[in-house]
């Protein structure tokens, strides 16, 4: 029984004044097992962010279904969706999405506060995570006072603190320098090693090479997938690179 099932997802955008409809996703089907670390790759405009938004229940598909733990997230009512998102999903975004009005600690607490947890419980959950992510020294600081890498680790802590079933990461290394990127990817691998399921959208080959499986999306469809299996990161890097080249040149021929 997979943790996440995405079946025949379709998303068409129509502009307000009835212009030509744009098909962002034409037919996407895949699944993610419990404890899996999956990367989704694709060029700009391939529909990967739309896909992530639908999985995250921020956006709704035109048709198709998303099953998280066999619960169809598409049919959850507007009222319950926020609580559902808060309890089951953790987010890591490219631009961190930290609130500048909160200290690092309060940023991490945010989803728990929204879930009306007591301060004692929040604090008890925070300590091990902060220690593990190496941010316990900066908890009292504010986002503008810390580095990009620290901001992203804060975001990861915020995603982890609710013990989510699935962590969704949207270009998590996009705003980081190479050192911070390596650190973050290392962290993701460790978290995944602890059993955390991760779904990451990226177009960084390096980031994708850390994943156990890479899905390639092209023109709104899953075009290809690669399994890391026993390959090393370096081998994986080459394989992904080759696949991308193949997709790009193959695509050019079709156009």
């Amino acid at each position: 029984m997979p943790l996440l099932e995405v079946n025949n997802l379709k998303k068409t955008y129509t502009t307000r004044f009835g212009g030509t409809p744009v098909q962002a996703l034409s037919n996407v089907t895949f699944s993610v097992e419990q404890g899996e670390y999956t990367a989704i790759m694709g060029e700009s405009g391939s529909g990967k962010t739309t896909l992530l938004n639908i999985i995250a229940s921020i956006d709704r598909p035109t048709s198709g279904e998303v099953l998280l733990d066999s619960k169809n997230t598409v049919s959850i009512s507007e009222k319950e969706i926020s609580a559902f998102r808060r309890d089951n999903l953790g987010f890591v975004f490219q631009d961190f999405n930290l609130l500048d009005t909160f200290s690092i600690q309060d940023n991490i607490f945010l989803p728990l506060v929204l879930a009306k947890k007591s301060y004692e419980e929040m604090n008890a959950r925070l300590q091990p995570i902060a220690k593990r992510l190496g941010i316990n020294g900066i908890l009292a600081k504010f986002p503008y006072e810390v580095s990009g890498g620290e901001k992203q680790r804060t975001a990861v802590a915020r995603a982890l603190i609710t013990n989510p079933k699935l962590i969704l990461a949207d270009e998590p290394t996009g705003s980081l320098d190479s050192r911070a990127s390596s650190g973050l990817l290392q962290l993701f691998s460790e978290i995944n090693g602890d059993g955390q399921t991760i779904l990451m959208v990226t177009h960084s080959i390096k980031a994708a090479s850390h994943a156990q499986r890479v899905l390639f999306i092209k023109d709104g469809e899953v075009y290809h997938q690669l399994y890391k299996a026993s390959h090393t990161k370096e081998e994986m890097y080459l394989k992904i690179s080759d696949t991308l080249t193949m997709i790009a040149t193959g695509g050019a021929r079709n156009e």
Partner: protein
Amino acid sequence: MNKLFFPKIAAGNIKKNTKMILPYMIASICTIMMFYNMRFLAVAKLIGSESESLRVLLGLGCYVIGIFSVIFLFYTNSFLIKQRKKEFGLLNILGMEKKHIALVMFFETLYTSLISLAAGILGGILISKLILMLLLRAVSFDVAFGFEIPVKAILTTLALFGGIFMINLVHNIFAVHLAKPVELLKGGQQGEKEPKTKWIMTVIGMISLGAGYFIALTTESPLAALNSFFIAVLLVIVGTYCLFTAGSIAALKVFRKFKKFYYQPKHFISVSGMIYRMKQNAAGLANICILATIVIVVLSTTISIYVGIEDVLRNRYPSNIIVSGQEITDEQANQLDAVILKQTTEAGMSVSNETRFRSTTVAVLQDKAWFKADALTYSSSSIALLHFIPEEDYSRMSDKPISLSDKEVLLYTANGDIPGDIVDFNGLEFAVRERLGSLTANSVIPSDLIHNYYIVVKDKETVNKIGAALNDGQWEEAELAYYYGFDVDGSREAQQLLIPSLQQAMTDSGINSTAEGAEVSRDSIYTLYGGLFFLGLFLGVLFIMATVLIIYYKQIAEGYDDKERFEIMQKVGMSHQEVKKSIHSQVLTVFFLPLGTAVIHLAFAFPVITKMLAVLNLTNVKLFAVCAGITILVFALFYTIVYTLTARTYYKIVSPQ
């Protein structure tokens, strides 16, 4: 490049930014309408030349409105340009030179100012007749017929507002010119630091606000109130600024310390949000608070003075007609009585509610029950006036025969307090036989601002003995003063005729005395107080508009800053409902904090204001309370309407879908 290129871009920009530009244009149009009308009234021929004081008042109004318009429109404009920097930055990056941007701005200003000026002056002319009638009604002049459009007023309006728009344009060009493209693109959004807690300022604010309130509450004498009110106002203004800027942040940070309170969804988001909001807006909110206080005070006082004109007249003239004279012998008093009787009979009026007595008035310093005449300091609250009335006169007035001994007095306290049963006139002691509830059987004694005591003594000799004692022997025996107040049953016009003829007859008989009456003063009082009332109303409306618009812009500006914040919160699991609730509570706080504080200020200022109104002869505290209440309600109503509109616009900006 096409000649129409820049005008077209400018027109497009205006259309795109309706949300920002429209309120500015509406504000411009309203201010222009008001200024034109004030100017129109100041030069209108229809008002006639009979009232110079009204014209002076209106001329003054023009200056106040003019100065206010400059500040107000400049302030609003600077808001606008701050929000639009990004847009101009984009034009700059897309290859427009700064001089081209200046050209676009020029056309934008041209369009908006032409529309505003045209609409404002046209609207002003349309409502001018209405405004004129309102004014004439307020000062109870006869309504004049005809319609006039003074070119002078139009020209001044054009010159003033043309000037204001030009200044704004120059300011905008400089603002954009001095900025680098990157800064333009970033616009208002820069990394925000958390504000520091300024404890010293908080303490200063609390102390000065407390001191201001204390002065306002403890000032006793109305004359002292004039001085101390000014100091109290300054202290309260300082206090308001300090507490809004430093105090609010200090308080919010203290809230943050209480973990149980702070880590609740509602408080968590609003407390941290408010810390930043207050950092950016504290000074503006303090301004709004002070402006709102001014509006409420100005409106409620002018309205209550105007509504209370009859009270004022009654206070100033307890009787329809008052005849009074100094050093009147008994024989002269009888003569005066005869003259009055003759004049009123000739005019066919009967006299009623008579108050007639002889007295001597001595200004003294009071210390409880001890009195002494002294070199007087007017700010002192221990000044009192003692009116000595011979027993004979009191008996006649009250229809109560009494016989006092040499060492006894009757005491009527019009205003003030004398403790105990003994009064001490600088060493000369008397027993208070009775405290009187009223002095006369059927009429009123004018109440005054300072302490007033009416003391009935045995006879004229006793009066002189006391006079000598109070003045340490420096006392010349003199005849008593004579006061004769009475009501007549004649019409307004008849009374207006009677008083001068009475005065003439009294002068003819060679007695040094005056006759005055409410009806003669009524017109001039109406002109003055009516003019003040009108001006107060006019300025009040203008201030309300300014307050409300400033707050609208503040909220919109914040909406763009908050957009991202709320997007993040929704991603992290805050529901639409929660976002909406949180927005409402924060917008509500920002909106009603200044108004709430203004009402508190007014509550503390209330005693002082009533005392100052007493200087203007308005002693009807209830009337003032009602006027203040109504003013606050009307203000709050306007406020609520704008709040609803603002909250809606704000929500549209912030809400993602």
